[in-house]
């Protein structure tokens, strides 16, 4: 149940005509075609689409992991500048991500402590005493219902998938970024962990007022968590707007199809629209 449309804060991330092209010549592929978006402070946004529609490409462009072929991205009203290592580091203090596959998100050779300490160091906690650092890590772990004492000196592969994904959220808790991109964070964990993880993210949003961008193929999840929904097909947005409007009163055929594809527990599945 989406909360009633809340008061929107000021714009934090605005994309104008964002385009991404992979390859050239015969292998040229336009993964993202001139998309526009406007994300606000404290807003929860879902970008919904099927595999290969360009959701993850948009996420990576916003994160600055791949370059933007064309278009401008405004961060806090200013064109984003990540041309130098220092500027990138500064940018990444404000924008963070949780990835889809918890098993490949961790460096298996580093201990869990190193991962959390990195976050403390990044947010300027380098000079804190060991006791303070320990308290911060304990707090972050308890926020996601993990016990730091049980995790210390362990390697990521000793945890379950759900635990790993919760640890990722503990990392976000320590970093407190302005924007979080959650790239299908629940698709690889079981249904029970899924609800827990979503609740934790929402709680975190309320606590530090961050913007969350969900990348998902699950329109039910999008309806459950988001304020705004962007429906994406073949690299372009076909429909966008408040979650209530888009999902209860869909206009685009593609949106209708996505909604009808959601498995229902009661009643027969309507497969007639599947084309």
């Amino acid at each position, binding site marked *: 149940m989406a909360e009633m449309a809340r008061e929107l804060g000021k714009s934090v991330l605005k994309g104008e005509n964002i385009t991404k092209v992979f390859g050239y010549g015969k292998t040229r592929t336009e993964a993202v075609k001139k998309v526009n978006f406007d994300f606000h402070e404290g807003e929860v946004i879902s970008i919904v689409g099927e595999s290969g529609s360009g959701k993850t490409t948009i996420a*990576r462009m916003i*994160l600055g*992991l791949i370059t933007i072929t064309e278009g401008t991205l405004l961060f806090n009203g200013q064109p984003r500048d990540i041309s130098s*290592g220092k500027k*990138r*580091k500064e940018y*990444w*203090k404000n924008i*963070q*991500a949780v*990835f*889809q*596959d918890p098993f*490949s*998100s*961790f*460096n*298996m*050779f*580093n201990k869990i402590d190193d991962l959390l300490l*990195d*976050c403390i160091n*990044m947010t300027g906690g380098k000079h804190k005493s060991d006791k303070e650092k320990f308290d911060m890590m304990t707090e972050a772990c308890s926020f996601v219902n993990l016990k730091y004492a049980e995790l210390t000196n362990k390697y990521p592969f000793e945890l379950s998938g759900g635990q790993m994904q919760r640890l990722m959220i503990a990392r976000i808790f320590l970093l407190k970024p302005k924007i979080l991109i959650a790239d299908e964070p629940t698709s690889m964990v079981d249904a029970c962990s899924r609800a827990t993880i979503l609740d934790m993210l929402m709680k975190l949003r309320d606590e530090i007022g961050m913007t969350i961008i969900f990348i998902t193929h699950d329109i039910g999840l999008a309806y459950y968590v988001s304020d705004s929904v962007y429906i994406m097909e073949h690299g372009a947005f076909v429909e966008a707007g408040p979650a209530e409007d888009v999902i209860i009163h869909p206009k685009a055929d593609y949106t209708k199809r996505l909604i009808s594809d959601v498995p229902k527990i009661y009643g027969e599945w309507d497969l007639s629209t599947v084309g």
Partner: protein
Amino acid sequence: MLRQIKEAFRNPKFLVGFILFVLLLLMAIFYPMISMYEPLTYYATSFEKPGTYVNILDIANSEGVKLNVDTAAGRLDSVLTDDQKETMKDWLVRFGGVEESAIDLEDSESFLKLWQDNYDSKNPQKGLRTADKKAVARLDKQLTTALNSDSIDIAGKNEEGELEVVKSIPGDHFINAGSVGNSYTFPLGTDNFGADVLTKLTSSIRVSLRIGLVAGLIGTAIGLTIGLLAGFLGGWVDNFLTFVTNIFTVIPSFVILVLISNAVSASARGATMVSVIIGLTSWPWTARSVRSQVLSLRGRDHVNLSKLSGHSMPRIILQDILPYVASYVVMAMILQISSGILAEAQLSMLGLGPNTSTTTTLGIMMNWAQQYSAMQSNSWWAFVPVVISITLITFSLNLMNTGLDQVFNPQLRD
């Protein structure tokens, strides 16, 4: 990492290869310490069979010993066949006037005495054909020669430069090799120069292993650096490095090896120089495979996460990429060590290996054995141990590689 090392030592292939390699290494390290010979010193003059070798001049300078053995009878046994003994017995009975019952063929000493006392070539020997008479006379002469215990004269030059007898050694005297100052026991004989093959072999194994190790380290280091940079940085850096790597891949590395070795003068080519040259030409395949592995690692989420954590590029390469390719790199290095040893042997066979007057390697030993026709002169000890050593070294390294492969890629286990 520790877990994988433990697992590696539980893998039978790796374990056998490792033990074999360590044994060879220990032999190469410790045998030269306990050996009484120097690998490059000449003790004999040419190929000498495995065993004890005493120089003839040393015999002249040592005291002979007359052993209390029945030499004459012994020699008779070694010279005469049973048929010849029968002929002699027949002669003694018919012409020498000896009773048949007095002759005992088993008792060589008394038989010999009877013969020497009674045989006379001037005996008319009635009833015997001339050919038979001559045959018996030849037999007698053969015996006389065999039993001759005359002295052997050893000559030497005196002050005026003329030869004179220095010493004469009685024919029935023996020399105790242990009491001769310069007697040598060569377990594997000597090579064409008269150097001890075993000492030379262990010293060669040590040098060859060092060449392989240095070449493998250099080749792996270059290949790893190029592969990591090309794979991780991408773009024009990747294009340029891949271009260079491809050039080195298409030109047969052995040709470059020969050309470079030829360009460096023989006196400057030490073992280290040769290993550097081999290392500089053996990196392309490591670079290619490391690059392709890094290419697939580059887009992984843990690398993205590391970037988002603000880590610098060198740190990401060292902490997030290198550990994931480390197992492959170790395996590639083991193979490069083994191919480095083989490359040195090939170069040395062509005469382009390390300087032969200062060092000795497995390749050089084979080269000398071939040049001095060890094969034609049946001097197997000059090259068979070398070939076995090279085979064992490369076999053990390849076995270790296969074992590690099974540890790192569990699907390969049978």
